[in-house]
């Protein structure tokens, strides 16, 4: 394998919410839910995105507008070219017939989308700050939605809603992706109830294939050992929920 971007044309663009667009492109990636690709805009930069749609050689990434690079992605048009390489990393484990729940906070829902499709019958929790930020409403009809401002669904965070759900039912496995503090609390909740949990971590990515050391979390490389980690590994990762490493190598709090 050669780790170099391949150029693909944007086949379609859909708007998921005011801040999130999905860019579709044709691709024969050998992709597992939870893995990511590196997206290159020549002369600008290259950044990691999860594949949020994957059907019949059409793949999509759902991009939350944040800074320079995601802005540039939002400004792209049908027919424009992007470089992609990957997929990289270890995805979610997908056991058959488990009673499971996915918990997505904000754009974290993108990482869980293809997993959710694969799992089929699964409890879905999606939470955002406010109603307009909820994505994939058409795609997943029976989501348990929550917003911090209560503008739609349950008022509160995904952690609050998940805790509510746990009062009524139990799960054999929980998958979470979102802000690290949120994931950490979901992980704790699961641990206290002996529920297996897998979360998809987020660190600054450079190489994407395990050599540069940029994406460290307690000796684990997010890009190749993760981004998905199960509870038993997370228990040994002291940095989880606490510190991350910036582009320049400095530590910062999550």
């Amino acid at each position, binding site marked *: *394998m*050669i*780790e*170099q*971007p*391949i*150029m693909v044309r944007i086949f379609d663009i859909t708007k998921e919410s005011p801040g999130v667009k999905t860019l579709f492109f044709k691709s024969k990636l050998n992709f597992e839910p939870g893995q990511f690709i*590196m997206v*290159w805009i*020549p*002369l*600008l*930069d*290259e*950044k990691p995105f999860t594949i949020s749609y994957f059907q019949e050689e059409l793949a999509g990434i759902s991009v939350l507008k944040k800074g320079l690079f995601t802005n540039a992605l939002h400004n792209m048009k049908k027919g424009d*070219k992007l*470089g992609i390489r990957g997929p990289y990393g270890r995805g979610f484990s997908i056991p058959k017939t488990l009673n499971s729940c996915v918990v997505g906070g904000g754009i974290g829902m993108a990482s869980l989308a293809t997993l959710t499709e694969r799992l089929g019958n699964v409890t879905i929790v999606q939470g955002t700050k406010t109603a307009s930020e909820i994505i994939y409403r058409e795609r997943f009809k029976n989501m348990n939605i929550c917003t911090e401002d209560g503008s739609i669904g349950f008022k509160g965070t995904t952690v609050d809603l998940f805790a509510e759900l746990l009062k009524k039912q139990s799960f054999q496995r929980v998958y979470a992706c979102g802000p690290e503090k949120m994931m950490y609390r979901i992980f704790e909740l699961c641990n206290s109830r002996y529920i297996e949990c897998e979360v998809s971590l987020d660190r600054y*990515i*450079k*190489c994407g*294939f*395990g*050599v*540069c*050391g*940029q994406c*460290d979390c*307690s*000796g*684990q*490389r997010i890009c190749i050992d993760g981004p998905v980690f199960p509870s038993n590994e997370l228990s040994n990762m002291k*940095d989880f929920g606490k510190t991350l*490493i*910036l*582009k*320049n*190598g*400095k*530590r910062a709090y999550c």
Partner: protein
Amino acid sequence: MPKIDLSINLCNIKLANPTILASGILGTTKALLKRVVENGVGAVTIKSVSTEPREGHKNPTVITFEGGMLNAVGYSNPGVDAAAIEFASIEDVGAPVIASVIGTQKEDFVQVINRLSKSKFSAIEIPLSCPHTPGFGMLAEQGTPQATFDITSAVRKVTKLPLFVKISPNIPEICTVAKAAEDAGADAITAVNSMGPGMVINIEAQKPVLSFKVGGVTGDALRPIAIRCVYDIYKAVKIPIIGVGGISTGRHAIEMIMAGASAIGIGTGIYYRGIDVFKKVCEEMTQWMQENGFYSINSIVGIAHD
């Protein structure tokens, strides 16, 4: 049959085996160094540290091609103050740790070394040979014999630790540079840094892939060049050589040692064979030595010479 002994004594540092994690690969945190030690390495090198924090180049910073790898990371690092915290009580990692120190002028090297002096590093390495970071290495002419002598001398004055000078394969006068380092008091030569620089262009994008356009070449492509450099330097200096460049198997390691290396560095090999490349290389070396009647690393060093 005598037992195979892979352990070496490198400038009075004891290594369980001759493999060393090369600088810039996974050496960003103490936790990662520890992980590499768990995977059987003899010693580790931290990612190079400068006085101030550096963001490095934008992505793409590391790519591969048919013959190896290209990188222009650009010496991203948190600066010496943060590094001193990250690598405090470095003795915890369980193997000797080499501090890689960079600077744009010799005072910088001195400053970084002084500020790291509370951590129990086993040696200092100064790469004067990066081919893709403005202000440093080859792009700052630190690789000339004179500059190598000057910087090495300045560093020599402020540390009693074993001092390794890391040199570039891109210069015809490589032996002169190695000699200059030796004359200035270096305890070992690390040969070599990445080669080139090289460039890969994506023809659909019509642009170089690396954001810095060019990057240092490592891996398989570099190996024969590195072997030749070590072979030549072995004849030119008396101090030990740490051979680095394209090593990913036990056979490669033995080849490098026969060329004259007393220890060997591995970087890109992690890409080729995983983080346990060190364990694999050691196992392969042991087996080869067993089959070929060698029982210590020392007995192999430089034996390809006439």
